[in-house]
């Protein structure tokens, strides 16, 4: 396994299964913890912890107030930041974020933008004067492949958990008053779910790759779908060429996965809402 990893792997692929016993189209067990009681972040406004097999990703959302930009006076900001600290895998060094972390942050920002899961206009309190800024920090605690899926899932779960206090602007003084007693949840319009595939030898497609599989793969594809079956993002950063038909297979698989994940999220949210 250590001397000839590719050959070892090919032997499994010939039997249509993988070293950890999964089928080629099977996902690892997904668990999600949302909220202040189950998740560890008590200082954040919304938090979620997602485990996809061994890959552990935690997302914390903090809401702050700021003045909106001059050219878009009625829009707030959402700032995602993905961090891959050196504790999650030995190949990440401490220091400025590496290329993978930056590319992942850009990907998450694109997903939020493309799927329109949160309209920036909803984050505005007073046009031109005050708006919410949501800082979403996604930190990987344990990297075992498939970072993008877990990050998107954690972000979605954390945003569903966010409660924003009501903010009013006092007419006379012009200052803002934050009412911490009255909290409203965020309006999330769409629920994007990412599905990642690894391409092997230009032909085989494997769902939910582990870190080992990702290293051996010749390419990766990530597809983000929302509940209407629309594609929010197709992310195929180079790697072996794929025909249109293969891409179509991935998309159909992604749509099925979306339904499974949506069910899981709804179940978890229902279990933590106060009765």
């Amino acid at each position, binding site marked *: 396994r250590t001397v000839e990893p590719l050959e070892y792997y090919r032997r499994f692929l010939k039997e249509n299964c993988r070293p950890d016993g999964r089928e080629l189209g099977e996902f690892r067990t997904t668990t999600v913890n949302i909220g202040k009681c189950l998740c560890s972040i008590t200082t954040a406004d919304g938090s979620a912890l997602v485990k996809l097999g061994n890959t552990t990703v935690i997302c914390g959302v903090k809401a702050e107030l700021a003045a909106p930009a001059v050219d878009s006076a009625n829009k707030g900001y959402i700032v995602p930041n993905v961090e891959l600290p050196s504790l999650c895998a030995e190949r990440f060094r401490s220091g400025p974020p590496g*290329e*993978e972390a*930056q*590319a992942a*942050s*850009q*990907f998450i*920002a*694109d997903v939020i*933008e*493309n*799927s*329109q899961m949160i309209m920036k206009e909803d984050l505005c309190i007073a046009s031109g004067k005050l708006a919410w800024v949501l800082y979403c920090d996604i930190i990987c605690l344990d990297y075992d492949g498939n970072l993008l899926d877990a990050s998107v899932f954690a972000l979605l779960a954390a945003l569903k958990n966010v409660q924003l206090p009501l903010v009013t602007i006092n007419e006379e003084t012009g200052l803002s008053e934050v009412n911490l007693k009255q909290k409203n949840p965020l309006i999330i319009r769409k629920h994007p779910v990412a599905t990642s595939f690894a391409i092997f030898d230009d032909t085989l497609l494997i769902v939910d790759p582990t870190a080992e599989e990702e290293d051996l793969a*010749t*390419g990766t*594809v990530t597809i983000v779908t*929302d509940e209407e*079956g*629309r*594609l*929010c*993002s*197709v*992310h*195929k*950063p*180079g*790697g*072996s*060429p*794929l*025909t*249109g038909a293969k*891409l*179509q297979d991935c*998309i159909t698989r992604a749509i099925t996965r979306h339904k499974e994940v949506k069910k899981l999220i709804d179940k978890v949210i229902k279990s933590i809402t106060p009765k």
Partner: protein
Amino acid sequence: SLSSGDTSVLAGLYGPAEAKLSKELPDRAALEVLLRPKVGLPGVLERSREQLLRQTCEAVVLGVLHPRTAISLVLQVLSDAGSLLSCCLNAACMALLDAGLPLTALFCGVTCALQPDGTILLDPTARQEQDARAILTFAIASSERKVLMATTKGSCSVEEMQQCLATAQRAADTIFQFYRDSVRRRYSK
């Protein structure tokens, strides 16, 4: 330097050259892409674009013929008027061709914009990109027109994506013809 319409990108390729010990790979060439925007310092967007370009180039360049070397591709954006990513892809491929690196296939970048009324527009300008519902960029390989790289901005339905892909594959033919003509012009003096 490659320009399509008003968008132009300058590409410089250096390699295969001696690699730094920390960056060298024992069995293949280490490819590095640097994308410099027209204004400002390279940010997160440039990093993700560099990653896309790097992995696309790694798929076509036969790195195993030059182990323990480094190939650096530097792209400078001279002007941006829409379809920047596909312009960078085309510039990268021409640079690889010009340098004479061993490649398994050529690739070309095509951008499709989906208008709000459903029509597909190829190679959109900045104005058309802003109005569009979704922008899809594909890197199509010259062998069997397979998809090497795909990125989307904005949401679209599955059928629309397949349509854009088919249109992009047809458009790839024109671009590959352009490559052939330019190379012929360069070497037929």
